[in-house]
């Protein structure tokens, strides 16, 4: 019984490793220069696939993701900087294409609200503590 469990455990662990290393980038897309290829991979990881919207184009096998991966590599070969490539994409698809939303007036709430809620939470706990302390003294 223990042995079976061990086999299952090992299987689960290794299958996890396999799927983690399984990206959709196809061999024919790779750039010859490993430094440039690494740059392309890093950009791809930050770019949202607009077909399957919670995956990066690095993970997605949708045709549009492939087209964008090839386009990014072509732009790198042409000597474009990372920023120029991100700008090219957001000019066409908007900030939504970036998996990491930029800090702007339109995204202010998105970035600030968690801290506001945290502050409210701390305030409530503080208030509650004070109240229960007072109750204790009254007893």
């Amino acid at each position, binding site marked *: 019984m223990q042995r079976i469990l061990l086999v299952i455990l090992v299987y689960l662990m290794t299958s996890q490793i396999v799927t983690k290393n399984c990206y959709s980038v196809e061999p024919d897309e790779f750039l010859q220069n490993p430094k440039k290829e690494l740059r392309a991979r890093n950009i791809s990881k930050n770019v949202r696939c607009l077909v399957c919207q919670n995956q990066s184009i690095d993970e997605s096998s949708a045709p549009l993701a492939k087209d964008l991966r090839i386009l990014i590599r072509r732009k790198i070969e042409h000597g474009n900087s990372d920023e120029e490539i991100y700008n090219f994409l957001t000019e066409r*698809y908007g900030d*939504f294409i970036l998996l990491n939303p930029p800090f702007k007036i339109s995204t202010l709430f998105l970035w600030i609200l968690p801290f506001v809620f945290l502050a409210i939470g701390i305030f409530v706990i503080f208030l509650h503590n004070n109240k229960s302390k007072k109750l204790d003294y009254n007893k």
Partner: protein
Amino acid sequence: MKKKILISPIIVFFLILLVFFYLLIIDRNPSELPSVLINKKVPAFKAKLLFENKTFISPGEFGNETTIVNFFATWCKPCLDEHPYLKKLSNERGLKIIGINYKDDSKRAIKWLEKLGNPYSNVLVDPNARLGIDWGVYGLPETFIVNSNGVIKYRLVGPITKKNYDAFVLKVKKIEK
């Protein structure tokens, strides 16, 4: 006072619930993206024509009149459903419609248009999706309305259907004014 404070989270909870239910009930596709190209000039590009051995140059060919730009492909089933409505727009309203044949086999596209009728004044070919990316296309079919100054005013993701045809015509009329 204490009672009020205790009851307020419940009220907030129900308000949030109300908002969620409202968003569920209204006719809305949450994965649909607004185009960032709205109120911008049409992108500059060059493309080969499907039927003639000529090059189409944008933005030179835009302007003068309201123009519809429609991305389609023979492999796209909703495009087939949309086709009669594009013909209707072209025949009944005399609109100039530019078709962009997205990642398709040109021979198949020619056959498809010969069989179903051709509502397009020009059909451009986009074999490697470069035009599609320039227009921010992410799912076929997509239809843009470009005004007489060559400015993109509206984008529809998904087909023109019986359900949204009248609304689409209304949009066109508004932009034509």
